[in-house]
């Protein structure tokens, strides 16, 4: 897929996504596919996942590959924890703050060490997964759906981080940084919205 097409697809995804629901999107194909669709239609999950992938990609192929593994594994672990325990889901403000922080990290494009980027991916994955696990683990077929969620997070991270990791032109990296600033701005607005 060409990068402009990919960017357009990402924009359409974000534009058509909705706020978090405590239930699954009904695709009509069963819980696994409902889970596959979930991160693509829940913008509060989609944006931080995109930001983590952009961050990993900006730091090159090695860090990008590490993020592609760390993010879905952490997400899955968070979902398992959320589904298996009575831990309360993180407050909405924490998701907004996390989104803003990840956006700032992308926009600043500093030479963050690989451990810091992978750490950010793990924190984001566990935090977002906890919410998913708590909400989706309780519904019928929810456990299967959680696997679908992790699969989508893996595919999304692979595509985005892979596309960004090979960018060499300065202008292309600036486009990614601008995207990060938009994610940060959205997170800040949402933070105000949730604390209102």
């Amino acid at each position: 897929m060409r990068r402009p097409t990919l960017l357009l697809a990402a924009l359409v995804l974000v534009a058509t996504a909705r706020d978090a629901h405590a239930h699954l999107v009904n695709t009509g194909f069963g819980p696994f596919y409902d889970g596959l669709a979930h991160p693509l239609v829940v913008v509060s999950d989609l944006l931080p996942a995109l930001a983590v992938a952009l961050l990993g990609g900006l730091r090159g192929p090695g860090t990008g590959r590490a993020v592609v593994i760390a993010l879905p594994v952490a997400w899955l672990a968070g979902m398992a924890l959320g589904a298996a325990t009575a831990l309360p889901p993180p407050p909405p403000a924490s998701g907004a703050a996390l989104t803003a922080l990840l956006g700032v990290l992308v926009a600043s494009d500093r030479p963050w060490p690989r451990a810091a980027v992978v750490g950010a991916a793990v924190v984001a994955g566990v935090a977002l997964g906890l919410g998913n696990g708590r909400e989706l683990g309780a519904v019928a077929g929810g456990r299967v759906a959680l696997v679908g969620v992790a699969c989508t997070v893996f595919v999304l991270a692979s595509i985005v981080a892979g596309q960004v990791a090979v960018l060499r032109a300065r202008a292309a990296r600036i486009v990614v940084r601008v995207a990060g600033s938009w994610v940060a701005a959205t997170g800040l607005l949402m933070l105000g919205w949730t604390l209102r």
Partner: protein
Amino acid sequence: MIPALASASAFSWLGPLTVLAHARGGEAASFLAGAGHPVSGLDHVLAMVAVGLWGAQLGAPAVWLLPVTFPVVMAFGGMLGLLGVDLPGAEIGIAVSALVLGAAVLAEWRPPLAVAAVLVGAFAVFHGHAHGTELPAGADGFAYSVGFVVSTGLLHAAGIAVGLVHRWPAGRAALRAAGAGVAAAGAWFLWGAVT
């Protein structure tokens, strides 16, 4: 002739005297509603396009740094507005932003990058605060916020795209004329805000 035409065109946009950064009550909270909010007021539109025009005039790295600075700081201002933090004179600040940014384009002012970024960031707080106090409570706040930010960013991009005419002599003159138009509109908004 071209500068005069451009100024006339800019003036033709000026309709009502009142500052247009007002709430649009009852709108559905969604991506499209969020995208429509920044373009609902001419004062916001002119200032955001002027940021792009000025960035294009200044060249790299300002051409991308200013449009990156504005949405983030604007969102911070929006957050303050959402939280109910009072910011006296926000409408005046918005009008002054159009006036100063237009004047900067007109004069081809080239301050140090940090000064330009701080100036744009300071104005962004006013714009963000005005928007933040108006944002409707809704269940789809994230999608609304995304639309809002994307729309703002695209206004900057439009300004940059237009500002690329700066590389030709006639384009430079046209750009300065556009700056004069934005500054005049800012003066018009300022008059409306203080009277």
